[in-house]
């Protein structure tokens, strides 16, 4: 019961924030709404016992990426961008997406969790081996060691790339 209550609370935050993000004209308002939405997502992570992701979501997304966004918004002058027409492009893709989401929702509502009955593995993979963070570390460094290493190159490229793009003289 409590869980359902919290779900509704966070879901409202997520959707309300998202709707405001895509409809506000002022980019700063959009960014603030996005932060609200991201915090709502973090709450949902906590509700599903993903404590590690909850922390990462707050630290990385809200504390890192969104601050970067706000910096850039402050850095570049968005006055012209504020007064623009909207809602006039690519209706067909939007229509397609809405239909797809509608069908998906109808399907889930009708079939519920049983849609995924096939998905449950016979044995719970890493049950009760310490807390959530320990489990993630275990899986990350066993099964996903390779992507973890590639991510190091990816981040190096991100560093080099953003310096190349933004620095005056290189």
């Amino acid at each position, binding site marked *: 019961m409590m869980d359902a209550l919290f779900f509704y609370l966070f879901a409202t935050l997520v959707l309300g924030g998202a709707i405001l993000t895509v409809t506000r004209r002022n980019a700063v308002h959009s*960014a603030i709404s996005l932060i609200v939405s991201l915090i709502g997502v973090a709450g949902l992570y906590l509700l599903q016992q993903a404590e590690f992701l909850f922390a990462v979501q707050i630290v990385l997304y809200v504390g890192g990426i969104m601050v970067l966004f706000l910096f850039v918004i402050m850095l570049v002058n968005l006055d012209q*961008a504020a007064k623009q027409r909207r809602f006039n492009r690519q209706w067909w893709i939007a229509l397609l*997406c809405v239909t797809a989401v509608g069908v998906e929702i109808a399907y*889930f509502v009708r079939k519920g*969790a049983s849609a995924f009955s096939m998905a449950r593995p016979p044995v719970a*993979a890493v049950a009760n081996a310490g807390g959530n963070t320990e489990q993630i570390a275990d899986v990350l460094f066993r099964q*996903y060691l390779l992507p973890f290493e590639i991510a190091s190159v990816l*981040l190096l490229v991100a560093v080099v790339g953003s310096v190349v793009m933004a620095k005056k003289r290189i």
Partner: protein
Amino acid sequence: MSGPPLAWYLILSAVLFALGVAGFLFRKSIITIFMSIELMLNAVNLSFVAFSYQLKQVNGHVFAFFVMVVAAAEAAVGLAIIVTVFKNRETLNVDEVDSMKY
């Protein structure tokens, strides 16, 4: 298993994803378009975590973690490019960023 069923999370994820797509397609400001992409990625992460919870394993958490890493890297490079675009032409309206002919 207690708590709201998986389907609720998936519906929420799908709606959030659609909102991100709508924002991407209909907004004009490059920064807001970028924020819509972040919404889409969060929708994806939400469904990863929901599946993970249902399956009682943490592989989905790890995937969501990698998606976050990629989102951060993309945001860093993307915002650097946005700053360069702005330095060269002082507008961030996608309709004005079209010196190339169609």
